[in-house]
């Protein structure tokens, strides 16, 4: 088990190395930071001083090594746009995105899995047909449109929920949380639904097809022949056997939710990393973009590791080295 984790982390290192190379390459090829920082009027001496300050006169490998060394320590330099340390900016925004993404994932799982089980069990009931039709809407409507429709309905017409922002937040150390105030929770509802709807429908459809597959297996028939209750069969034996693919997809989707909350955050002016990223792209704020890219890569690598560990927890056949022979 321990050696498995270590080997997985070792495998992740080359991935992170390549991503950092790409992040670093942005400095060289996306816009000219010197021109951006100096603005319109500058002297040649000012320019050279800045180039030296930023280390841009050094050879490529030296620059990359410095970048990598700093990155490992969580140091990504100053934002061109806001002139503040990037790490600080991201740390400030990360809680908003993470809370939004986790809430969206929670909603998607808590509603998507039971709906998938239901539609897998009762394929022809009218409720299943309704769920499937509804899921087509979730899959095919673009996120921004869903967000805008929700705002129109619940903020503009009904006036129940706020249309933008995060509401009041509570500070817990460096973490700012919207979970502890009523306005924070109200502000979270619409963006979380917007972000989670696609995942919800995806998980529902996945669980449904896996359930239909598993319900045809011999061990489910045998469980019925043993007279087990429907509840034990459907939610125990059958659901557990659908979990491996569901964990894979849900894990990748969680990474996706965190990384690509950009659209939702823009629609709801949610003060998270996605909004920070899109504003940084507008201003060619490369240190922020580079740091964001690496952070997202790290998130994906971590989630993949967790997914692999969950496989182990769910499926005993994958626990090698424990076999007791025949």
């Amino acid at each position, binding site marked *: 088990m321990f050696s498995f984790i270590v080997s997985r982390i070792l495998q992740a290192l080359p991935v992170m190395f390549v991503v950092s190379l790409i992040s670093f390459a942005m400095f060289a090829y996306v816009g000219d930071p010197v021109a951006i920082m100096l603005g319109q009027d500058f002297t040649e001496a000012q320019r050279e001083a800045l180039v030296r300050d930023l280390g841009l006169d050094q050879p490529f490998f030296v620059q990359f090594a410095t970048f990598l060394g700093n990155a490992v320590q969580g140091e990504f330099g100053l934002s061109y746009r806001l002139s503040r340390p990037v790490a600080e900016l991201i740390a400030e925004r990360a809680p908003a995105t993470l809370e939004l993404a986790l809430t969206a994932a929670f909603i998607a799982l808590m509603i998507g899995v039971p709906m998938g089980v239901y539609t897998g069990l009762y394929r022809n009931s009218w409720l299943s047909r309704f769920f499937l039709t509804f899921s087509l809407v979730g899959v095919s409507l673009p996120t921004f449109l869903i967000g805008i429709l929700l705002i129109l309905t619940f903020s503009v017409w009904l006036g129940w929920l706020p249309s933008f922002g995060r509401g009041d937040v509570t500070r817990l150390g460096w973490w700012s949380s919207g979970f502890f105030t009523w306005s924070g929770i109200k502000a979270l509802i619409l963006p979380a639904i917007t972000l989670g709807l696609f995942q919800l429908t995806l998980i529902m459809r996945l669980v449904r097809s896996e359930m239909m597959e598993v319900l045809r297996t011999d061990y489910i028939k045998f469980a019925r*022949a*043993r007279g087990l209750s429907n509840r034990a069969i459907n939610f125990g034996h059958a659901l557990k056997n659908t979990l491996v693919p569901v964990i894979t997809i849900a894990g990748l989707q969680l990474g996706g939710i965190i990384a690509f909350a950009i659209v939702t955050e823009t629609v709801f002016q949610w003060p998270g990393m996605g909004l920070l990223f899109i504003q940084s792209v507008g201003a060619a704020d490369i240190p922020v973009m580079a740091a964001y890219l690496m952070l997202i890569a790290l998130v994906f690598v971590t989630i993949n590791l967790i997914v692999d560990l969950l496989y182990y927890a769910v499926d005993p056949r994958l626990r090698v080295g424990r076999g007791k022979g025949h």
Partner: protein
Amino acid sequence: MSLLQVKNLRVEFPTRRGTLVALDDVSFDIAPGEVLGVVGESGAGKSMTGAAIIGLLEPPGRIAKGEILLEGRRIDNLPYEQMRRIRGREIGAIFQDPLTTLNPLYTIGRQLVETMTTHLPITPAEAREKAIGWLELVGIPAARERIDSYPHEFSGGMRQRVVIALALCAEPKLIVADEPTTALDVSIQAQVIAMLKTLAREKGTAMMLVTHDMGVIAETADRVAVMYAGRIAEIGPVREVVRQARHPYSQGLMGSIPPLDRRVERLQQIDGAMPRLTAIPKGCAYNPRCPKVFSRCAVERPELMDAGTTRAACWLYAEGQS
């Protein structure tokens, strides 16, 4: 009184091109503690009969006619929940392939315990002790250590022993065993069958043993039913049917088994193949392949009638009957 009575059972599959009759007019009894062997070619309806008895016909298959009675009580028309309480508790089932009948994600102990706690008034701890006892009974070595193993940690033969323990653990009165040894190595088959036979005898459990292995039937069954194209062709004491089959189809079936005690030049074979359910011939379903066919066979369908010590659905034995 018979433990199980099947009366004029008819199973249909409604399809777009019309209704398929998978079983027609199947009738037999099983006495308490008796082993009834059911033989026949693939698709003859052996497994279907078993599935109908445990109430687990694959949809859209349904019982269109007839009755199934367990200790005199009709069970073919029970609501799902009532039938569920009978499955496992009154009628156990053993399936063909032990590699796929156990849930791969649960330990064998958990599967045994949940079966017992579903049907018997015992605590999980008591059930666990009993589970170890059952594993010992079916011949799993070091049962106490192995109870928390997963199915994939056992060989095929061992897994079928676990399946048998699962079928027996709530002490049902009847076991429907659908080809319990077909998927096993030949060397293991005999052991497993012997163990199953001994356990059924000790517990007084009756058994419906579906197989196409005549050796297993001769070894284990008290009576045997030969099925052909969804009907029973012949039913009688196993000794009579094996040695002196009356129905020409059973004769063909028995003749195709190589005898061990003498050399034969050529094994008998039955020409042709069993008709598909969509094209069952008029009259006796076997008439196009039957060496003793005569005019009546192609016109009228024979019911089971007395044929010496067995009962056969064949017009050859029509003398003295109505």
